[in-house]
């Protein structure tokens, strides 16, 4: 990576059972991923309200990623299926409003996929960094 590359702020919502555990496993395996990623633990990806995503952007996040159990593996049976529909609609709506689609992502990461977690985060950070600062969904009051 280049030295002067933009350091984006990434908020990652991870479900407690799979993705948060996956992130833990990434740690256990000492897998390297950018420190720009800050994880918020939620019981299930379906706990993530579209409002949280918007709030994160308002507060200055440059990218928001939501991670949950693979479809079919939800600890609560079906939560991630709802997440998938909700986020599909939200992301599409943001895209419709002309907000860069690379700033939002939904990924399925199981508790066993520490490597995938790290790789996903590396990729996401890189893509968001390439976009630079979030200008289209920012609240100037929250800028320093």
């Amino acid at each position, binding site marked *: 990576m280049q030295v002067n590359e933009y350091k984006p*702020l990434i*908020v990652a919502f991870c479900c*407690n*059972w*799979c993705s*948060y*555990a996956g*992130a*833990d*496993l*990434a*740690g*256990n395996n*000492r*897998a*390297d*991923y950018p*420190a720009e990623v*800050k*994880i*918020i*633990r*939620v*019981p*299930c990806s*379906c*706990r*993530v*309200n*579209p*409002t*949280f995503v918007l*709030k*994160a952007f308002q*507060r*200055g*996040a440059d990218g928001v990623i939501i991670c949950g*159990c693979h479809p*079919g*593996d*939800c*600890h*609560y*049976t*079906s*939560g991630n299926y*709802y997440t998938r529909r*909700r986020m599909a609609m939200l992301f599409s709506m943001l895209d419709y409003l002309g907000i860069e689609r690379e700033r939002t992502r939904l990924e399925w990461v*199981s*508790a*066993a996929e520490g490597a995938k977690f*790290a790789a996903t985060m590396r990729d996401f950070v890189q893509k968001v960094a390439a976009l630079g600062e979030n200008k289209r969904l920012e609240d100037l009051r*929250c800028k320093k």
Partner: protein
Amino acid sequence: MQRIGVFVCWCGSNIAGTVDVKQVAKALESEPGVVFSTDYQYMCSKSGQDMIKDAVRDHRLTGIVVCSCSPRMHEATFRKTASAAGLNPYMVEIANVREQCSWVHKDIIIGTQKAIILGRAAVAKVNLNAPLTPGESPVTKRALVIGGGIAGIQTALDIADAGFEVDIVEKKPTIGGKMAQLDKTFPTLDCAACILTPKMVDAAQHEKIRIFSYSEVSSVGGFVGNFTVSIRKKARYVNEDICTGCGACVDKCPMKKVPNEFNLGMDNRRAIYIPFAQAVPKVATIDPNACNMLKNGKCGVCAKVCTAGAIDYTQKDEYIEEKYGAIVVATGFDPISLDKFDEYAYNNSKDVITSLEFERLTNAAGPTQGKLLRPSDGKHPEKIVFVQCVGSRCSSCSEKGKEYCSKICCMYTAKHAMLTRDKYPDTEVYVFYIDVRTPGKSFDEFYRRAVEDYGVKYIKGSVGKIVPEGEKLVVQGSDLLNNRQVVIDADLVVLAAAIEPDKSARPLATMLTASMDTNDFFTEAHPKLRPVESPTAGVFLSGACQGPKDIPETVSQASAAAAKVIGLLSKDKLVGNPCVASSDELMCNGCSSCERVCPYGAITYEDKEFRMPDRTVRVRRVAKVNPAVCQGCGCCTVACPSGAMDLRGFKNDQIMAEVDAICK
């Protein structure tokens, strides 16, 4: 406003190595609500915990933030600490600065910065935490064991011996599972039937055990301590209570050409059958796909010969609903299908068999009464080639097999080879192997005996192709140690097929809301510390459904699962998870969105009277959450348009406060 204490753990050098813990503690000191902040080498140690307790007392703390390892590791520990200090345990939040910070970031400046942010988020959350009190629910003191193999039997026996009622649900007409099909067991070579069948009988006769054979679980509701399970007793067209297992019907059944699944199709059974002599329950079962009477109403011989009058062609599937406090999954394994392995000619030649088929061929109760005869022509094979790792340890890109090691193949192949040489010393026996894995008590000695005492020829290398040529099977392989190609004209080839979870496991997992790994093995709650529990409370794992296992391992895990179940059932009340959804009825529209998405049916509605500020009374439909049923996923909170539904412990404002703190 809270009075928050922040405790930054060094975790030895695990955290302190890449995070400046002093700086983190210092930085968090000025966060809103924080009145105390410190660091320590091992917060989870007794002295670390004492430090927290002292601080709670000295600084009148109302909330605690521990910057340490993953909450999945020590959240419970610190909640207990808080509890011991007189704080509500849910006033504790963990900032994961080890797994998600110090272990993944190398630079101390970056790591420290991130640790501060994570700590800040935890502080922001604790500021909005409210004391939570878990609800209590009674425990139904009865367990369900799904699967009647050795794992299920052992678990059931242990639970029953502790004095709790146990039901075993077995989909086959008899319990016994795979072990019942085996001949001898490694490494002691005692006969499988001799050690298994007494246990089967024990189970059948145990006053606390009920066996639902030829039955399947059709639905599971409820939650730990209070499961409601619907069991489908498949129609066997024989009244179990009356049938004496005399076998007269079997003898007279004219439908003789039904492949016998117990012998893996190597011989035939009748349309009415008892799987094997020691079957439990020893009652006949009519195969509806084979029986003429059931298919087209012509025959009825069995009914005529049954003196007990047990035959009932009108029998229907029966659904039984039972309540359980705990459920043990013991669904076991199956060898994989070898359809995709054309190179081994399994589907082209009858003399290419699987190891399980080999077990039946050498079993005295098998199709050949224990004589080792070629399935194709019934001749004694003179040259036998065993091929290991068929479908095991495949590369991840291979679509045919499994990535994992099936664990038991090395040992049973050694057993087969040894037994063959023992019984038929003139038979040449070759084993193709990648590695021979023998980590078990007396395992390696066993393998060496096969090589050294019995002259089994082990060839390190894989088999590229097996070509049937006339009566022979030309096995083309490589000998890696001697670096040459080998061609063996074999009479019989035995494939050590990989094992995989039983096909019924996946739908069952869905019913149980228990998670599975990518190979459909059930996931344990913790790979090391909670290996016999599923992450779903009240669901336990026994045997090969969790991963490949041999018999001794299976039995020990079965007993371990039983111990966990006994522990659970011996409680009178269960303390629930207080992090459940709750609806603010003043804001609830009663629109039913939440109810629709709740996977547990935890939400119901009631008409409630509201006294309006203008003194009128208005009746409105509002949602109510059953906290004992709610598992706390939070799906309803997003479905709710008005925001009336919120999730305790993960409230909207808490999550948003975390977002704010992270983005600050």
